[in-house]
Structure formats: C-alpha cells, structure tokens
C-alpha cells in the first residue's frame, strides 16, 4: 500500500517535471522553427524583390514598450489591426511602466533576448546602439519602411554614429502648460510669446502674493539642457566624451534661480513634492499652481486628469529658438538579435504611416511624423490635441537642431543631476559645490 502510494507520487513528480521541462522546450523549439521559416521567407522576398507580403510563413514578433494604461490599450488595438491585415504575423506584446521597462530590458539585452521591436528613449539609445544590441535601420528605409511622407530630419533623429538605430515615432517640444484662470487671479494678464526668465521670476512673485505656486519645478536634465542651449552650449559634448559646457557659472546661475524659486515658495518644496502619491495630486492639477514645465505630449494627459483648462506657452527667453528643439518623443528600434528584422521593420512602417492606426494613437507618442497622417488627424483630434499640434508646428519654425543623441551613461548622469538638484532644493549643498561635484562625477561616468 505504502509502496504503491510512493510510486504514484513519484510518477506524478516525473510527469510534473516533464510537463515543466516540456513547456520550456517546446516553446524554444517552436520559436526556433518559426524563426527558421521566417528566414526562408525573407530570403525569398529579397530574392524576388517582391512587395513585402508575408504570405509564405508564420512569423512571431515580440514587441515591447513602456507607458501607462491608455497607451497599452490603444497599442494592443493597433497590434490587433495589424495582425488582421497581415495573416501569418503574430505579435506578442510586452509592456511595463517606465522604470520597470528599463530594468527588464537590461537583463534581456545581456541574454541576447531583446524583443524584435522595442521602444527606445533618447537617453538610452546610444547605450544600446553602441553595444551592438540594435539593428541599423538604414537598409530598411524606403524598402520595408515607407519614409516618403516623413522629413529627413525626423528620420535622422535616431542617428547614433553612422547608423539609424531607432525610428522616430513622434516629435515633442518643451513648454509651459498653464491654467489661464489662475494666472488671471494672480493678476497676470497673459504669458507673452517672448517672455524671458526675468518675466518668469516677476510672475512667480505675483503668484506667491496671490497664494498659489507658479510652477512645480524643473526636471533637472531637461531644463538645464534647455538653459545651456539658450547660452549656446548643451549638456553633453557632441561626441559624448564629457559635458558640453565649460563654464560652471551657467550651472550656478540656473540652479540658483531654481533654489530661489523654492525659497520664495513660487515652487513647492521638495518634501512637498516627494509626498505626492501620483500625478493627480500635483498642485497644478488640483488648481493650486499655475502651470507645469513639461513635454508637449504630456499636455493632453494633464487636461485629462485635471478639471481645469490649460493653455500652452513657449519657454522663457531670451534665445528661445536656440534653446528649443524637436525631440523624438520615442523610437521603435529593431533588436540585432531579431531573426525577423524585415517583418519588424514592416510593422514600424505601419505604425507611423497608417492613418487608421494613428486614429487610435492620436499623438500620444508625440506629434505624428508622417505629413499625411498629421493632415488626416487634424480633423480627428480633440481641441487640446490640436493645440499640441499647433505648438509643435510653431516650435518647428522656432527651434534649432537637437544635436547628437545622449551618450551611453546618460541614464546615470540624469540621476546624478536630479539628485544634486534635489540637494540644492533642500539646501543641503550650494549650487557652486553642486556644479563642481557634477563636473567631476559626470567626467568619471562619461570617461569610462
């Protein structure tokens, strides 16, 4: 009796093990055969130089992106539409929040297991491209990826070295998004298009007198870079070997201004900001602050979560055009380890060029890059989205080139700078000391 029970248990154990092992095994095996067939079909395709129609074999593409729930929802819908239009292509989505996304991506890269298509950000593009993780998209341009209606500048936004390692999905520009009602209450008529940092400080004082915050501070890396650009410099050297400015006085000037804003309470103190549970608690959202300095694709989200109406103003001058640039809001890259690069490229082409798909995307990933799509969407989009389109069009006329992509190690620099700016806001370190500290630390990070 006892023995038979033991045998039974043992058998179950073996079955269980086999099942587990089998699962993995079959998946791997399945993956291999699938990719094998892909290779064949793609070979055929290139041989016959036919229009890319994957009628031949079944392809499975993995795609990964970061974002919040609305973005996940519409992206999944777009994927479904694509699968319907392209029988034989199966797309496996993987999505996460910003932080989780990068933490998941790093080990995948180490294991050569990156998804076929992956969302990339400017601050990580070099890191992944320099290390040979991403495929150069040049061979696909004009072939699998239709770039007829996309300007060259926009496509070149994904350049690292000699190759294009990410395909630009939309463009963004920084600006000030403000609540006009609250602005009027603070006794400010309007924010003129050509306002300056001095105007900014004056207006801040008026806001303080009226008992509201003027803004919620600056994301250090983004706006310090803007300030440097205004002064003809930039955060990173063009070749990525170090910082792009020599004079630490620029650092001191900018962060002293930020510190003063905190001291006069025109900007909430850092401990106030740290206590916020989420974006819906933001003082601007709740109507306790006049505005936010942020990227243009965040404008619609701000209107969505707040019951207040907002308008867009450019950044404070002088030399706004030198400071502003059109930033690729994000990229889709194809991984070097992908076995179906051409299929991946086709999906990217669909994502940026298909009008129906973009009626779902609606500029959440920045203003669409295709002029045809942009035109078609003008009637579709909401009033607030139209404002974003308009603002980005204005920036197109009033901006300068972005310059080289952020160097590898940018992620660490960004963290270092935001830590220092936090310490400055807390009064733990003077802007002078922080400037020096930033220079030495950044040098050792980028020098590696």
């Amino acid at each position, binding site marked *: 009796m006892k023995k038979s029970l*033991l045998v039974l248990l*043992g058998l179950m*154990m*073996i079955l269980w*093990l086999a099942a587990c092992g089998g699962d993995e095994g079959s998946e791997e095996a399945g993956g291999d055969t699938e990719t094998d067939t892909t290779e064949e079909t793609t070979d055929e395709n290139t041989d016959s130089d036919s229009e890319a129609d994957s009628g031949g074999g079944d392809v499975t593409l993995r795609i990964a992106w970061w974002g919040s729930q609305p973005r996940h929802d519409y992206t999944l819908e777009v994927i479904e539409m694509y699968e319907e239009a392209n029988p034989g292509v199966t797309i496996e989505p993987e999505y996460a929040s910003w*932080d989780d996304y*990068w*933490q998941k991506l*790093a*080990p995948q*890269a*180490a294991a050569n297991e990156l998804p076929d298509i992956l969302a990339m950000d400017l601050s990580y593009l070099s*890191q*992944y491209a320099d*290390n*040979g*993780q991403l495929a150069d998209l040049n061979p696909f341009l004009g072939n699998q990826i239709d770039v007829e209606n996309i300007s060259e500048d926009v496509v070149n936004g994904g350049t690292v070295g000699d190759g294009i390692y990410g395909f630009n999905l939309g463009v963004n520009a920084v600006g000030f998004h403000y609540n006009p009602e609250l602005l009027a209450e603070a006794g400010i008529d309007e924010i003129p298009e050509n306002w300056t940092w001095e105007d900014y400080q004056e207006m801040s004082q008026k806001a303080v007198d009226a008992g509201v915050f003027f803004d919620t501070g600056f994301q250090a890396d983004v706006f310090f870079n803007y300030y440097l650009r205004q002064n003809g410099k930039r955060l990173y050297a063009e070749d990525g070997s170090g910082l792009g400015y020599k004079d630490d006085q620029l650092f001191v000037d900018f962060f002293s201004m930020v510190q003063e804003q905190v001291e006069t309470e025109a900007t909430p*103190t*850092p*401990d*106030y*900001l*740290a*206590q916020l*549970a989420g974006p819906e608690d933001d003082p601007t959202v709740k109507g306790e602050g006049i505005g936010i300095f942020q990227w243009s694709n965040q404008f619609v989200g701000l209107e969505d979560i707040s019951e207040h109406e907002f308008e867009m103003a450019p950044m404070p001058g002088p030399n706004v055009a030198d400071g502003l640039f059109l930033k690729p809001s994000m990229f889709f890259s194809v991984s070097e380890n992908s076995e179906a690069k051409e299929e991946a490229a086709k999906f990217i082409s669909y994502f940026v060029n298909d009008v129906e798909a973009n009626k779902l995307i609606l500029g959440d990933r920045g203003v669409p890059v295709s002029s045809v799509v942009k035109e078609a969407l003008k009637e579709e989009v909401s009033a607030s989205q139209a404002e974003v389109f308009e603002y980005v069009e204005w920036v197109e006329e009033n901006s300068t080139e972005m310059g080289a992509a952020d160097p590898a*190690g940018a*992620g*660490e620099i960004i*963290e270092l700078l935001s*830590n220092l700016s*936090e*310490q400055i806001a*807390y009064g*733990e370190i003077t802007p002078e000391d922080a400037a020096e500290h930033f220079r030495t630390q950044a040098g050792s990070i980028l020098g590696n």
Partner: protein
Amino acid sequence: MQTNMKQNLWGYIFIGPFIIGFLAFTIIPIIASFYFSFTSYDLFNAPRWIGLDNFKEMFTSDPRYLHSLKITFIYVFVGVPLRLIFALVVAMLLNTASRAVGLYRTLYYLPSLIGGSVAVAIMWRNIFGDDGIVNIALLSMGIDPVRWFGNPTAALWMLIFLSVWQFGSSMLIFLAGLKSIPQSYYEAASVDGASFFQKFFNITIPMLSPVILFNAIMQTIAAFMTFVPAFIISKGTGGPLDGTLLYSLYLFKQGFEFFHMGYASAMAWVMLIIIAILTSLIFLSSKYWVHYESEGGK
C-alpha cells in the same frame, strides 16, 4: 542492498527538483557573481578583469555607497532590536491562557505573511501620506503633520516602523520558547515572593536566550537584505536625498540601472562578508549571555 539502493533512488528523485533548482538558480549564479566582482561588466560586453578595483572604488571614491552602508546599518541596528522587543512583548501577552489567543496569534502573524509584498509597501505609503492615518492621528493630538516621504530621516524611520510591524515570525518562535519554560520555575519563584520583573529577568530571559539568539541572527540577516519596502516606498529612487537607499536597493540600481554588474556583484560579496562577520560576532558573544539547559545550568 537492493532495497537500500532503491530507497535511496526514491530519495534522490524527490529531492531532484530542489537540487536542480539550487544548482541552476543559486550555486551557479553565486560562482558567476564571484567572478564578476573582479571585473568591469556592463551586461552587454564580455566582462573585463580589473582585479580589486571595484572594491577599492566602493570605499575610496563612492560617497553614495558609504552613505547607503550607513543607513543600512542604522536600519538594521535600530530595526532589529525594536522588532525583537516588540515580538517578545506580544508573545508574552499571548502566552496568557485565554480563549481568544488562537485568533490573536493568527492576526498578529498576518503582517509577516504579507509583509514582504508590494501591496503592504504601497499601503504603508498611504498610511504615512499627507492625508494618511498617521498624520490624521498626529493632527488630532495637536502635533503638526510630518512629511514622511519628504524628509530623509523620517523616511528611514518609516521603513523601520514597517519592519517592526512585521514581527510575526519572531513572535511565533518566542511564543513556542515561552511555552517550553516549565511552569514550576515561576511557581517556585512566586512562593519565594519574586516580583514580575524579577521573574522576567531571572527566569524568562535566561530560559529564552537560545531562542533570542536564533531570532537575532535570522532577523539581522534578513534586515540586511531588505529591498522591496525601500524600492516601493521611494518609488525606486532611494530618495528623498538617498534617505531610503538601502544596500540592496543601491546594489540593484548599480546593476540594472547603471549597468555596472561587476560593481554590483562586488557589493553583494562585501555584504556577504559583513553579514558573516556580524553573525559570528553574535555567536561569539553568545557564550556570555545564552544559557543552555543541557549544560546543567552552567
């Protein structure tokens, strides 16, 4: 012989899954990380041998590392004793004969079951939030609300409270220990007119000392490795002002955010050495304060 072999075989089959998992997910990674700790390894390119440079950097040119080490020590040396004291107090309360003890025991153990989870850490954020229950309580007592997440010291204390609150497993072990102290000792002491405190310090503590030793070691080790609460409560930043940048969190950031896997591996080995030293110190000290029944009361 035959049957012996057979029986052994069954044994191996049953422990097989564990052994395989142990090799694949514990032993091999440990060996690999030992090697990586002497290299510069960014996850993308092959590791490059740099000898002891990682260890040198830690102690000579990485102020953030030293800071993280410091707050981890504070976390451990404040949190663990508090947790043990709390666990012992609750265990003694539960050791009184009462009908509801079973229920209370379960209730008090619950936080430990769910303690390591993300949900609890998120709940903790709400409890200590601006409109959270803690600040409401403080306000009702006429004390100004504290910005728990805005002040580095307060944020660390919040983590310590969270760890103290998860006293359940130590409490259960204390409870078992308390139950094994013969009732006759207390009766004899009562006859001699001993007060509660005399009984506590002269009977309970010495009799319980082996259990205290065990709990102290286990909790110290666990506390050094705390990661989830710090990660969730600071939203992965270790802030404010690196106030909650516990050792494991900094290690994680180095490895997976900054792509310094070699450095992160070296940090892991230093942590192992620190834990080993502390554990042996606790063991060495035990002969002065731990009392074993079997040594004939010596």
